[in-house]
């Protein structure tokens, strides 16, 4: 899967979880950049991403992700 396609699907997951239809994600964005990104929505987001891409993150992979760019790279890695 190309990065562009990953970003599009990931953006759709973000929009669904945060209920923000116009939300645009960028590689450098973190939880501090989205108001509704709290403990609960973080869990829902990870679960939604796992379902969307049909992948399962390991705990150490989750803890390695510092921003959306890391998330994109990790999904890309797991999709190969």
């Amino acid at each position, binding site marked *: 899967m190309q990065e562009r396609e990953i970003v599009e699907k990931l953006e759709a997951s973000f929009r669904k979880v945060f209920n923000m239809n116009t939300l645009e994600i960028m590689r450098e964005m973190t*939880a*501090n950049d989205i108001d*509704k990104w*709290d*403990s*609960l*929505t*973080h*869990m*829902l987001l*990870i*679960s939604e991403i796992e379902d969307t891409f049909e992948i399962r*993150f390991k*705990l150490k992979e*989750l*803890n390695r992700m*510092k921003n959306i760019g890391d998330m994109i790279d990790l999904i890309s890695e797991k999709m190969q």
Partner: protein
Amino acid sequence: MQEYTIREATLHDIDFLITAIIEAEKSGSDILSYSTVFNLSESEVREMIRSMLLEEIDGCEFSVSSYLIAEFNHEPAGTIGAWIETADSPSKTIKSNLLGYYLPKASLAYAARESMITSELIIEHVQDALSLVIVYIAPGHRGKNLFGMLTNAHIHRNSGVRELSIQVMANNEFAIHSYERYGFKKFMNRKCENPEILRFLPFNEKVLLKKTL
């Protein structure tokens, strides 16, 4: 005469830490938010907390390394967890990753459907401050200044820290009074007016207290 000693928590303290986390979450009530928010029994919550503590991941309230134990006669009598909150590794993300990893998908779906209201009481941890969490003193050891002893030990363990922060439900007046006696001052509060929140949390208002060193 026996005295209290302070030491770092180890994996041998897990049962005590689980009890501490559960009792601190209940805040003197019967409501355990991990049960109500995620539709789990208390025994399921206990086992989930055990699994998370066994991961030995640092930096949140499910990290054994966050805790100091006050011991009396070789038995744990009290504990407080603490870490310095950093922008690089926010504790909320570490905690959510652990919870999300161990929670059944059905529990997450339940939370998304039923308990999103609980987000209204979330207060962010104070950046660069020593965040104190899960204050638990076992019955029989209360009123012996273990809060002060454990907090002093955490400050000593994190040399250079300039600020302490702690969060508590606003109805826990005994705890708030203890923190104020130690020098904490109320900094902000967050309240939810929707009575539905009391289905999930012990109270509808939370307070953040801070102390500058």
